């Protein structure tokens, strides 16, 4: 199985307290060095709570924000960071907020034409035909093409967003919370559509969400992010069923499931990014934390088979 996407120690830090000249006052890491592999045709789910760096990671992968360090490889070739169009033809992005990702002053047709013209130099009849084909693929009616974004519901707008991403004929689609803004009954429609498109266009997905159940339902493998780092990866059926990292366990236990009693009302918070702890970022909330955890950052390592965790004292299966 060949790799579609590979990141090596990809990291991003932001400057805090910029000055007009001279170095900034401080830096915070939004994404700590992350190494991920995604196989051809696979769906890798990425879960994590707000502020854990999901979107920052995704934006680096499509070239919308330059990484502070690390490499991105697509199908074995290192990506040229300088050229956004180079990213565009290989990897595309579907946004969380479907309506605000469409320019309110352009018709859907104009929105659809942009990637075809700019990335593939299409014109005239070929362009028309391709748009029709894409619209058909996402189950939208062609008469929608001459309307403006505000005339669409969230679900329809998200289909348009997906069609636009597909117009670039990418190999990989980054889906950043693609259904979070949608109604539950519409969410399933879009998830099913995504599953169909993946087969039809032979795509590889990186599916980002904060909803564990949704991620589990669509992914082959799952990576759990906490405080900018990957803390656990593994096959979708194992990660939440038999979590190795205590944080994954906490996540899985927190998800509301009918029939499961409510947990205790303990409290616990993310560490301060301006003042990160020296060892494991989860140590403050972790029931298994030891002195080692507070001193040394755990590295992601294989625990059993293809399940990896970044923990000094991983849980038993």
């Amino acid at each position, binding site marked *: 199985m060949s790799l579609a996407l590979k990141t090596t120690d990809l990291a991003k830090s932001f400057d805090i307290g910029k000055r*007009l000249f001279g170095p900034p006052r401080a830096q915070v890491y939004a994404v700590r060095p992350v190494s991920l592999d995604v196989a051809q045709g696979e769906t890798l789910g990425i879960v994590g709570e*707000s502020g854990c760096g999901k979107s920052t990671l995704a934006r680096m992968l499509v070239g919308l924000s330059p990484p502070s360090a690390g490499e991105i490889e697509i199908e074995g070739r290192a990506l040229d960071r300088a050229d956004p169009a180079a990213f565009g033809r290989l990897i595309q992005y579907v946004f969380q907020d479907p309506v605000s990702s469409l320019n309110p002053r352009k018709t859907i047709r104009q929105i659809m034409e942009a990637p075809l013209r700019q990335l593939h130099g299409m014109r005239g009849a070929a362009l028309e035909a391709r748009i029709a084909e894409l619209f058909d693929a996402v189950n939208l009616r062609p008469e929608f093409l001459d309307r403006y974004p505000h005339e669409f519901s969230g679900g329809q707008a998200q289909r348009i967003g997906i069609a636009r991403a597909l117009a670039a004929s990418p190999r990989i689609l980054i889906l950043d919370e693609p259904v979070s803004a949608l109604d539950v*009954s519409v969410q399933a429609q879009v998830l*099913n559509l995504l599953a169909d498109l993946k087969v039809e266009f032979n795509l590889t997905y990186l599916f980002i969400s904060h909803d564990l159940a949704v991620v*589990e*339902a669509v992914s082959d493998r799952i990576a759990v992010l906490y405080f900018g780092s990957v803390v656990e990866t593994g096959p979708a059926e194992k990660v939440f069923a038999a979590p190795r990292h205590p944080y994954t366990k906490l996540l899985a236990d927190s998800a509301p499931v009918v029939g499961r009693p409510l947990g205790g009302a303990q409290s616990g918070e993310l560490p301060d990014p301006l003042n990160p702890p020296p060892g494991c970022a989860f140590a403050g909330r972790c029931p298994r934390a030891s002195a080692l955890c507070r001193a040394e950052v755990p590295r992601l390592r294989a625990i059993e088979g293809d399940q990896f965790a970044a923990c000094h004292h991983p849980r038993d299966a």
Partner: protein
Amino acid sequence: MKLFLSLLFRNRLAAFGAVVLAIIVILAVLTPLLPLHPPNATNTANRYLRPLADGHLLGTDHLGRDLLSRLLWGTRLSLAVGFAAALIAGLAGAAIGVMAGYFGGRTDNVTMRGIDMLMAFPYILLALAIVAVLGPGLLNALIAVAVVNIPFFARNIRGVTVGIAHREFIDAARLAGMGHARILLTEVVPNIVPVVVIAMSTTIGWMILETAGLSFLGLGSQPPQADLGSMLGEARSALITAPHTSIVPGVMILLIVMSVNLLGDGIRDALDPRLRSGALARPMAATRVDRRDVPPAQGDGLLTIDALDTQFQIGKRIYKAVNQVSLDLRPGECLGLIGESGSGKSVTALSVMGLVASPPGVITGGAVRLEGQDLIGAPYEVLRSLRGRRVAYIFQDPLSTLHPLYRIGDQLTEAIRVHDPVSHAEAHKRAVKLLEDVRIPNAAARMCAYPHELSGGMRQRVGIAMALANDPDIIIADEPTTALDVTVQAQILALLDELRQSRGLAILFITHDFGVVGQLCDRVAVMYGGRIVETGPTAEVLAAPAHPYTRRLIACVPELGQGQRVLAAIPGLPPAVDQLPDGCAFAPRCEKARAACKSGEIALTGATRKVRCLYPEEAHVARAENH
């Protein structure tokens, strides 16, 4: 465009402004063709003729020149200069603002420091300095006024551009391979244009005033040529002896500027989508009530809602957000209200204490009874004394629902003291206790914190503490955990459940998550299109949903632990509540729909399990028969 014009002219003041301005502009354009005295022809014999004098409709000035003629020629000049200044300032300012806002970083920083520098001058100093350099003269006054106003435009437009440059569609354009120039031209600028138009239309009047002012000071148009400002300036010395020479040009300036301002405001209102939708209306202290008859009391719960109807009336459209909703809440019970976005959950909840934003909200029917006392239409003072004391609310987004400028301690003590006028010290003590009750570590120290200094979970705990301040009987929680992370959500739910047990609270819990309902609620009501479609004990409804919508909604939500799978989606969209179909609102999406479903009112039937469906689900029917 048509919409814009019709909106513009629906605003009577704007229409009035447009008409007056049109007349003035037409007169100004036609001035050279009108049979007027030459504006600069002096005739000292006829000095200071009063208005309506022979041949001089408006009289003459200190040199015996015809005032009407000078007025019209002056108007021409003033209008032209004002518009030109606004155009120059608007375009130059917009260009600077767009560049700085789009590119950000150092470009932005340096440009904006420069702009700030210019804005550090009271504007007239700069204008005077520019005129001092260029020398007095109308053209120079125009340049001065334009230059002085550029910083205002630049700042304004920059702010808007920054907002747009961070929108997702700009990212999308970059991913589509567009370069900066193309993005600026095709993505950013079209979204800026309305803002520039608004800014210009609301400042033209101001520019006309300013140029007139410079001319008034003798720094603008030079004799014998006169614009309105210099006419006033020349007339000032004879203010007391010949007031008409001042009044005539002064009133003209007033007319022009006022009509321009009225029109400008109209344009702004018509272009601003929020004003268009009436969203800028101020909600009143209590929801407006307009109901014909009061339904008889049904249950005898602690809180009973009977056949509640709440609508939003926006223009000619009526959004029936809540239709004939009946619910009852018993002491100590947790009732879940579940439904998709827009199904009317929040509006139902807010109607209870008259908190629906009004305008545009109106309660058009039904009753809400707290221990038998009807709250709909109750006097404001009665409602107020019940709010927070007997019935308290917890809202969704804890950041926007706490006042950003008050310390949380002050917000808590206020909640206590509006109902129980204890001393500050006593209220403080109780507030600390409340914070401890909701498990906020370091409660006493946290009293001084502002909301933005707390995390989302902590803020929601404060929200809960505030709801508990007066030991209410009922808490209405409107999606209190939707904005929170799962791990925090679990903590908050557990806390609510504990408090409910220990204090015997009745909770109306609104959510869109079946998992949450399953864990927390005794009974559940399902809403769709503003109606309750099913109610019953939670376990029964979840195990054997009776309404097709409930069944399919449960089926299409993935649940943790079921692995990778295809979901059973519901086709179609939820109905828009301003055009609810006749009959069952779910009919267009229901595979069991028959002709009977599409007409008439379908009743909510049953005893403990109620369902609003003509052909309820088999499993449910079977269970009911077994009982």
